[in-house]
């Protein structure tokens, strides 16, 4: 690898990449078991000096909802959630995500937990960021075995939302017109490695940029300001990545 000395962790890079994708929006919601997207959302809020609103669904502190479990979906249906994150047991080159099973649906080989809210949120949230750390031919497949939610829809289907990007441990893909394009390769990884480990076809420019490393200012913000907030919801993650103990949980 051409990197000299890395002064950041993978999680910090990924959070920085995601925070840039978020852009200038009013409200980000982050679902369950998503510590890196949650880190990115809190980072975006710090950079925006309080904007956007961030709803961490597992948090009590960073959670504005008071109308029960359906409010997230109602809120998204109202157009009030600008960014959401989805993952998938399988993701294919058309942006379809599979959270259900592999093999035949009636006689599956592997069963995943289920579609959660994907079959709705993928359609109505303007910026859905796909996030899957494991970048392999097992996860990034030519065609998913079960479509929990499709990457694109016919013109007469109500669909103000959809995928804008896919972030993995190796690279960033952007998504437009029903296809992924390799947007940048993370420090320490190569285009060839991405091609080798990706099961679907994707576009790529003749010269693929390198994902910029997080700046010193970003790392300071992450470590000193974001990490303590994260510890309420993801204590193990905050401890492991940022060395934050429970005592440091911010008010």
């Amino acid at each position, binding site marked *: 690898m051409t990197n000299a000395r890395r002064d950041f962790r993978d999680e910090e890079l990924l959070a920085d990449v995601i925070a840039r994708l978020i852009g200038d929006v009013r409200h980000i919601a982050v679902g369950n078991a998503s510590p890196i997207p949650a880190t990115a959302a809190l980072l975006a809020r710090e950079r925006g000096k309080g904007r956007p609103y961030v709803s961490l669904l597992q948090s009590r502190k960073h959670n504005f909802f*008071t109308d029960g*479990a*359906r409010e997230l979906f109602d809120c998204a249906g109202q157009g009030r959630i600008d960014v959401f994150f989805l993952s998938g047991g399988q993701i294919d080159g058309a942006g379809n995500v599979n959270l259900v099973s592999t093999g035949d649906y009636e006689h599956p080989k592997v069963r995943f*937990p289920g579609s959660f809210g994907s*079959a*709705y949120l993928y*359609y*109505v949230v303007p910026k859905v960021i796909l996030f899957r750390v494991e970048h392999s031919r097992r996860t990034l497949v030519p065609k998913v075995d079960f*479509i929990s939610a499709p990457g694109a829809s016919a013109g007469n289907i109500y669909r103000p939302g959809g995928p804008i990007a896919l972030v993995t441990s190796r690279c960033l893909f952007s998504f437009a017109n029903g296809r992924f394009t390799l947007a940048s390769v993370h420090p320490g990884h190569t285009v060839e490695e991405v091609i080798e480990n990706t099961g679907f076809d994707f576009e790529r420019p003749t010269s693929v940029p390198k994902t910029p490393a997080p700046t010193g200012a970003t790392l300071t913000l992450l470590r000193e300001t974001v990490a303590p907030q994260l510890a309420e919801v993801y204590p193990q993650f905050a401890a492991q990545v940022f060395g934050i103990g429970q005592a440091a949980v911010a008010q």
Partner: protein
Amino acid sequence: MRVNMFQLAKSLDEALAALTDGCMLVVPREVSGVPMAATRALIRRGVKRLHLVALPTSSLQADLLIGAGCVETLETSAVSLGEFGPAPRFTAAIIAGAIKMKDATCPALHAGLQAAEKGVPFMPLRGLIGSDVLAYRDDWKVIDSPFGNSDPIVLLPAIKPDVALIHATMADRFGNVWIGRQRELATMAHAAVKTIATVEKIHDGNLLDDPVLAAGTLPGFYVESAVVAERGAWPLGLPDYYAADADHLAEYAALAATEDGFAEYLERYVYDKRAA
């Protein structure tokens, strides 16, 4: 003078009497106050052939009921132990074809319950079109919206459970149950024929008499029976009151990975009444 038609149940088993074999049972998601003490009591009683609706997802509760052979049909959006990994008994039952699975998506379950709450036969929902979630649900219909111009939209049939089973912080002697922000518990109770609540404690007086408490209260009018079950969500958490027991959930995940281990878990934590 306010008269009282309600009687607190004298035991957990008495409170659960209305929940019979073969019924459609709706339960809340893993973070909304899951009636785990009641779930263990049902397994001890050997409840059978449940049509379990988990609104909109579940963790330990569905996995336990499935592993113990109580579930015939499961209707939900996901079952998982979260950071403790996949739900092993759910996964095994699906692979083995041992339960009938009705895969849904979270807002579709909310909408189905709201249809029953409103007394309408169906509720429309955006999204879904082009997904295999829709493709495998022959009870869901697509119509062309009469308010649009070639605007297909999904209609979801009302979900009308026989029983809603919930756990909450407190009830009073009028059957009023304080549910706080977990308002899906109210929708469940409105949609279901009967609601059974376990609670941490009894509130002296009437929850509806205090406007601040009343705002978070499910009226006793909807409640069939209520009973105290202290730490009744354990090993799951009760929002704002206690956290999930991470060590226990890790132990469950490890044991339930095999059928023998699951049997050992049941023996130790379910059939042994002291642990209930």
